[in-house]
């Protein structure tokens, strides 16, 4: 009995760990999209974050530098996107797709010399509590600081958007950049900031993968998580809390179906592998049915190019 309970606790802990990169990337992208910018380069920014975090860790042997560096690399690569879409007024969708392709290629090239190098152990917090408290121990304790950050991030994002002046400005820009500009808001600057913030979070999400979740560098190791994060933002109808729920469901079903495959359920493996995608979409569609709320949350100007009259 107690064995089963502690197993469930460990299972929940691992589900939480697997959903961290999704929460981070999706929360970042959510802010970007709320300002009206559609950056499809999430996957590319994540993988760049993953390789630069890992490379910096190997070179400097300092995890702090590695984490900060991965975020900076996300900022730099998103700056390319920002410059193209906001200053040169290129199409958001095409530029974002190009960014992903660029990121995957660049990371593979940079990562050549880092394949096969073992990662470093990332410090975990409250490891003694994890062992001593049954069930809740493995859920609440013994995680990296990034995980705690990731789980508070959706609430912070929600607070930022709903309660702060800056959040209001971001929403206003996403609603109507022309009106915002006529109100004297620097639309381009706001959008740049949101794009760079999104880049930083995607970089961090990548670093979580290569430094903490599976501490090593493997080519293409984000494996489509960036796309899932993008889809989460849309299906969660731009609500940070629903992004968290969606990420947990996706992570949860991913882990559960792996266990089911291991146990040998008589369900085709292909169906089990598709299950996380299917369930996440179903659940998010069901909890986001209120068309009124969708209208109010959707950034009206999403993906549209804004240029200032002169």
């Amino acid at each position, binding site marked *: 009995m107690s064995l089963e309970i502690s197993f469930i606790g460990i299972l929940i802990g691992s589900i939480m760990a697997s959903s961290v990169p999704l929460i981070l990337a999706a929360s970042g992208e959510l802010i970007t999209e709320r300002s009206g910018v559609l950056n499809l380069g999430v996957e590319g920014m994540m993988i760049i974050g993953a390789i630069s975090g890992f490379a910096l860790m190997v070179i400097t042997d300092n995890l702090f530098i590695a984490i900060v560096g991965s975020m900076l690399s996300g900022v730099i690569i998103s700056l390319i996107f920002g410059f193209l879409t906001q200053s040169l007024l290129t199409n958001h969708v095409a530029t974002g797709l190009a960014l992903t392709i660029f990121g995957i290629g660049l990371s593979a090239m940079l990562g050549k010399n880092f394949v096969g190098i073992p990662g470093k152990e990332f410090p975990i917090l409250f490891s003694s509590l994890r062992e001593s408290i049954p069930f809740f121990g493995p859920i609440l304790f013994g995680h990296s600081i990034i995980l705690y950050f990731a789980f508070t991030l959706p609430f912070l994002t929600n607070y930022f958007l709903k309660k702060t*002046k800056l959040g*209001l*400005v971001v*929403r*206003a820009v996403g*609603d*109507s950049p*022309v*009106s*915002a*500009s*006529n*109100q*004297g*808001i620097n639309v381009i600057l706001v959008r740049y900031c949101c794009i760079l913030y999104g880049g930083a979070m995607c970089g961090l999400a990548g670093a979580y993968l290569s430094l903490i979740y599976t501490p090593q560098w493997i080519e293409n190791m984000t494996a489509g998580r960036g796309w899932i994060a993008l889809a989460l933002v849309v299906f969660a109808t731009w609500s940070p809390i629903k992004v968290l729920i969606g990420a947990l469901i996706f992570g949860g079903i991913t882990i559960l179906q792996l266990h089911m495959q291991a146990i040998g359920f008589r369900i085709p493996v292909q169906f089990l592998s598709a299950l996380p995608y299917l369930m996440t979409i179903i659940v998010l569609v069901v909890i986001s049915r209120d*068309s*009124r709320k969708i*209208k*109010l*949350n*959707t950034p*009206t100007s999403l993906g549209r190019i804004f240029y200032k*009259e*002169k």
Partner: protein
Amino acid sequence: MATDLRISNISKIYPGCIANDNVSLQFKSGKIYALLGENGAGKSTLVKILSGVISPDNGEVFLNEKNLKLSSPLDAKKNKIGMVFQHFNLFETLSVFENLSIDATEDNKSLRIRINEILKKYNFSIDLDVPVLNLSAGQKQKVEIIRCLLRSPKVLIMDEPTSVLTEQETEELFISLKKFCDEGILIIYITHKLKEVLSLCDEVAVMRKGKVVSVSQTQNERVETLANKMVGQKLAKIKKKINISKNKDEIFKVKHLNFYSDDPFETNLINLNFSVKKGECLGIAGISGNGQNELFQILSGEIITPDTSIIFRNKEIAKLNPKQRREYLMAFSPEDRISQAAVPELKIYENVALNNFKSSNFFEKGLVNEKKIKEHSKKILSDFSVNTDNVELKSQFLSGGNLQKLILGRELITAPELLICYNPTWGLDVGAINYIHETLIKINDQEKSTILISTDTEELLKLSDKIAVIYKGKLSKIMPSEEVTPEKLGVLMGGGSID
């Protein structure tokens, strides 16, 4: 303290068009000034310069003899110039309070107190915590005005403020504006509606083709003198002879039209019934957003509703799509010229070809018969006096009036039995409006019918034989237009009832 605003030698040149040509004007507080002109006369450019949205190529603006540098909207705000744009600058998905707080410098609590003071002082009733998209156009305008008032402006510029308002709302607005004026705010009122100038303003400056052509006291002006100054030529008066058509056949009959939508941007329609006789014009009045969009889309076949019966020339057409309806000789002119009626990026003849019913032979074996379409387009351009004969021109380069003529021409050249149009003269200047009104009257004279959905009461009274009002998706009773007055329409459009 008195305010004195002076514009000196302002010029703004766009490629191929001089929007403002050496404009100089002077305004003093205590008076309401009208800036009158047709579309494209340069009024909007001038107010955009005054509000810092665009910068002039030449010229200066002085406020109380201080030279203002207006390089961004912030500069205008700092200098206490407030502006209410024709197309509202509001954030639809944010609440009223959020809209007002976005550029406020004080904390939310004291801001709310100040807003409530303004609401009380001017008798505005607006719920501060609902999203702006739930408000009527009149309320949205009030939000814009409050936003200006919060900054205690010296100058308040209103850009075509009544284009979306009912008669009553217009009256309320005028009362408020007069109050502001008495409080020492300098008011500049931009419009192309002559009657408003005469009833509200003290002085009027008329602009034509980027230049100021006259400045005068309104008491010395009449509608005709102002119109002639504005257009630069004498305008013929049009008056419709009302068709007494009791014995004519019903050509179009709608029964049990219901429409229900989850979308908060759409209006539900509740049991509409009406009919149109041969050679008759049925006008449907209402403030925009009361279901006209949905009604137009249902009549044109863009939306198919269950259980609705639409009989046209004795055939049931409720389940047919727009193309099939066109084949039965119906024609449509939607409100939004740019996005619904025409594709701006396409050339004129390509836009004409979009309307491809079977008889036109524009397409043979899946190929485009360019020659035929171009000939056909040329005929439309000359028959409907569109200001170009180049069918290769992209439609986006046509002015609103010319584009509307092209669209009407495209629809009418097939000699339809019924034309349904929605705000056909929206945003057009007097000359183009006159032309389109004449055209619509001509259709009725040729025993063809029209349904005119419009937010412009004057237009409806001029063109309709029968008028009904749509309010919150419900249709009032249908009245012969000689029994209808603007006041009656205003009451019905605001949700009141007559009798």
